[in-house]
């Protein structure tokens, strides 16, 4: 029985971690190459989820919604980069934080104006709504397996793009030394707009996939953005590999913590402590993990610079 619990929790952690990775990948490349802090990254996740939910509801098909929503969000990302964010690259971090925070607030209000303050319901595709039997006596939700599949596929695609293509080479060069890459003839501006489109599309994929599982609502980008920042700090800024490892680590620690910490507290301090302190400690566990990683590796697990 405990074997199945561990396996199930590992799958849950993997699913959560892969979705975090989709967000962290775009964030870390932007941060790594342009040294730009983008707090509006979570807004693309939110806008993506809303667009996918709306298109899916209008067309009656989850898949049409997913495809259309991802493309539309990528377009919005490009527009945002060309009009506003581009002006912030040369500024210091404080200006970037203020500027992108303003975008975040405006995005929340805009979404509230268009879709209202109540969550928008989103159904999972009927074919994936039930459980799948993985082992005798162990079934797992098909939809979560599907999320894991998509997450792994995107991670692999991104890995191939970054390590095996010319664009990827330029991205890596830009991440480790922007001036040198520019001197060697890389059009960093164009590269960066493309990068931003990919980042926005990844956000939308994460938002659309998590939409039926969670809720599509105003402000959904903020809490997950904090986690995405934790991921890139743990993984090392600018590193895709670091983002993947950091995301899986955060996903697994968060899921395991919610199961194990209350049990541990229950055995050590009694059921009262398990009920009160357990959930509180479980929710800070990933920050403890971050502090631990930074103590031994101040630049993260795989620093790009």
């Amino acid at each position: 029985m405990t074997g199945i619990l561990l396996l199930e929790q590992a799958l849950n952690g993997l699913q959560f971690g892969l979705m975090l990775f989709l967000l962290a990948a775009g964030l870390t490349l932007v941060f790594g190459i342009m040294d730009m802090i983008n707090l509006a990254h979570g807004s693309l996740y939110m806008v993506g989820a809303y667009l996918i939910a709306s298109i899916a509801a209008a067309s009656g098909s989850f898949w049409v919604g997913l495809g259309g929503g991802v493309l539309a969000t990528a377009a919005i990302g490009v527009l945002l980069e060309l009009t506003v964010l581009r002006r912030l690259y040369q500024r210091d971090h404080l200006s970037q934080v203020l500027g992108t925070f303003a975008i975040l607030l405006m995005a929340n209000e805009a979404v509230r104006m268009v879709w209202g303050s109540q969550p928008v319901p989103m159904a999972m595709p009927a074919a994936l709504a039930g459980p799948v039997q993985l082992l005798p006596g162990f079934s797992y939700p098909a939809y979560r397996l599907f999320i894991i599949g998509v997450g792994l596929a995107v991670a692999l695609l991104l890995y191939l793009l970054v390590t095996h293509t010319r664009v990827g080479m330029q991205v890596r060069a830009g991440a480790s030394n922007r001036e040198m890459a520019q001197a060697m003839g890389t059009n960093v501006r164009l590269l960066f707009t493309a990068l931003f489109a990919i980042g926005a599309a990844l956000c939308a994929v994460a938002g659309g996939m998590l939409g039926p599982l969670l809720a599509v609502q105003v402000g959904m980008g903020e809490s997950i953005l904090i986690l995405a920042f934790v991921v890139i700090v743990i993984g090392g800024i600018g590193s895709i590999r670091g983002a993947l490892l950091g995301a899986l680590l955060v996903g697994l620690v968060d899921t395991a913590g919610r199961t194990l910490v209350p049990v541990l507290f229950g055995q050590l301090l009694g059921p009262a402590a398990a009920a009160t302190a357990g959930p509180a400690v479980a929710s800070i566990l990933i920050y403890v993990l971050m502090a631990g990683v930074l103590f031994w590796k101040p630049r993260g697990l795989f620093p790009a610079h």
Partner: protein
Amino acid sequence: MSPLSSIRLVALAAAALTALPAAAADKVKVGLLSTLSGAGSGLGIDIRDGFQLAVKHAGGKLGGLPAEVIVADDQMSPDAAKQTADRLLKRDKVDFMTGIVFSNIMLAVAPPVFQSRTFYISANAGPSQLAGAQCNPYFFSASYQNDNMHEAVGKTVQARGVKKIALLAPNYPAGKDALAGFKRFYKGEIALETYTPLNQLDYGAELSQIRASGADAVFIFLPGGLGINFIKQFTSTGLNKEMKLFAPGFSADEDVIRAVGEPMLGILNSSQWAHDMDNAANKRFVADFQKEYGRLPTLYAAQGYDAARLIDGAVKTVGGKIEDKAALRKALEAAKFESVRGEFKFNTNHFPVQDYYLREVVKDAQGRVTNKTVGKVFDNHADAYAAECKMPAETP
């Protein structure tokens, strides 16, 4: 006479005329502070709609005085709620406050409301603190005490011979009250007791624990969007075929049923009210609510409706003299109004003593998935904290 001065004259006359019944207030101002955005918004919206329907039924009045209902969103955050409550109390100078859904917000807002000697009529939140030692002459619950609904499920689960159960509730005051209430009447083994953050929407980790706990049944207290997510995810793991799900009315009301649908069939839940209750006030309320808003009311809507009716009855009893706090308090305690749940009376701690029913989610004659009353669990049930309440006889 110039046109301007004649306007002035009319205005003066109008002012004089409205000032005539000088003994009574000229209107009743109600601050309806509720959760209108985020995962708990369905609850607040139903309270608001229920309340406004009652005002409409009374011809836009409460107790014969024109009613002004100021609606505000607490954003499900105690901090935002406190600021907004301050504005309602100090700037708008409301005569009554109502509407709060969540107990953590209720406990944050209670001190400034009581300090300003404003009556709070709860249309939902009923934390144990305000029922026991911290009971207050300015607090009246037109809903229930937090533990009650869960006590009713506990008794039902016990009576059905469930040997081993897993419990799940959010980590906030009402979540603690919920499981305390459930355990007061359930004597079997508790295989798992889990508290999740109030903003958590993914229950993957908890569902694995529930499966591993070997429980025969699950009891959840997850209001609004939380319950919707849980039940959807519960079904998608296939656990619904292995164990029975029990819930208080909050997690199996019409809002949840609308979102989840058929997988809800067969869920037993408890409530002090149901839309099929057979009394004149309820029939009118349910029919008009559907006509007005195009959906079946939830128990939150019923509580919002009753909160307005309670105010209406009390203001009528004091003849509109709402400045007389002592008289108003007496009138509220007497609770002269027709409740949609039938009879309504207060205990000494200003919480209702009432019946609790068992409902089952079924398909009705029209093929709708909805709740049906299948039995009564408690008669004239009081809460467990009333004895600890030393309610002052005089209103300060």
